[in-house]
């Protein structure tokens, strides 16, 4: 069997589960959960350094960017300019070219502003960034992102942090079928089975943060997600049985006493 390789741009990832580093109780828990998840890429945010409290622990002390790949995001950005500014600073910090673009359009739903997202993608690709794009689950807009040079398309399952799972399987399956670049379900995954379903549908990867960080036992939940993503991928690769409309006995009727 051909080796199952997960590649975004030129980067080969060992795990199809990408995890966020936000919302944890503390950095120790963050580091433990991420280790348990088996992820080799994590999303991070860019924010002001706290200049008044120099002794406060920082993320990089717990997660070594040399050992685990940082994927800087633009969380909290509501237009192209803010997103570009954030990612250019991220690149300056350590040469990060692979980034997660998310341009939000609405504070309540955190739904992506796709007009700004398309605009920002175009500029970032031109500047040499490898852009993983958080987007709506619109099949045509997803294709447009691919045309613009996005390295991966990351449609939401449901609103960020909602844990509502995949709300529009039909749209997601259209996106998967039409795409030549990896599809990573981002946002809204609530529990392990959501991730398995996404993977069984043929997604290339899953990005999870809240479902792990906000669970009662984040380290255990991270392990659960690791298994769920592997399981879903194996199931997809194996190819599920055909659905039948009638029963088909599993035990042979020949030799029945």
């Amino acid at each position, binding site marked *: 069997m051909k080796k199952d390789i997960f590649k975004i741009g030129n980067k080969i990832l060992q795990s199809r589960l990408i995890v966020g580093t*936000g919302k944890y109780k503390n950095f120790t828990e963050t580091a433990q959960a991420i280790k348990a998840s088996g992820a080799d890429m994590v999303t991070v*945010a860019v*924010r002001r*350094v706290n200049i008044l409290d120099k002794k406060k622990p*920082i993320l990089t002390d717990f997660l070594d960017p040399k050992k685990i790949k940082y994927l800087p995001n633009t*969380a909290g950005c509501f237009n192209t300019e803010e997103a570009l500014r954030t990612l250019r600073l991220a690149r300056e910090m*350590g040469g990060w070219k692979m980034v997660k673009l998310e341009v939000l359009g609405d504070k309540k739903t955190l739904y992506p502003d796709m007009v700004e997202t398309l605009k920002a993608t175009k500029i970032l690709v031109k500047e040499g960034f490898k852009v993983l794009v958080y987007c709506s689950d619109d099949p045509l807009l997803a294709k447009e992102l691919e045309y613009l040079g996005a390295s991966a398309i990351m449609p939401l399952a449901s609103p960020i942090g909602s844990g509502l799972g995949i709300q529009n399987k039909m749209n997601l399956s259209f996106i998967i079928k039409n795409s030549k670049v990896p599809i990573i379900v981002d946002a809204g995954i609530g529990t392990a089975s959501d991730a398995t379903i996404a993977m069984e549908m043929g997604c290339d990867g899953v990005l999870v943060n809240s479902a792990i960080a906000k669970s009662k036992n984040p380290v255990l939940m991270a392990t659960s997600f690791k298994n769920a993503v592997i399981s879903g991928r194996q199931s997809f690769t194996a190819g599920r049985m055909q659905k039948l409309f009638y029963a088909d006995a599993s035990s042979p009727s020949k030799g029945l006493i």
Partner: protein
Amino acid sequence: MKVSVLNILIMAKIQLNGSKLELKDKCSMFKLLQKYKMDSKKIAVELNGKIVNRSKYKSTHVKDKDKIEIVHFIGGG
């Protein structure tokens, strides 16, 4: 115009990460980062909206009314 002694001593009034700050000595970006014990490998610096390349910290001087942003990575999804 009344100029107080204090104002003469203060070389530059700057804004650092949104906080107002008064610098008494002439200062390079490198010195400023040193003062705040910043590990230059873990941060990025923006001066008046433009990124300062790490190799230019020593040759970049902080002037009156400069707006400086120092950022780093934090947990996020």
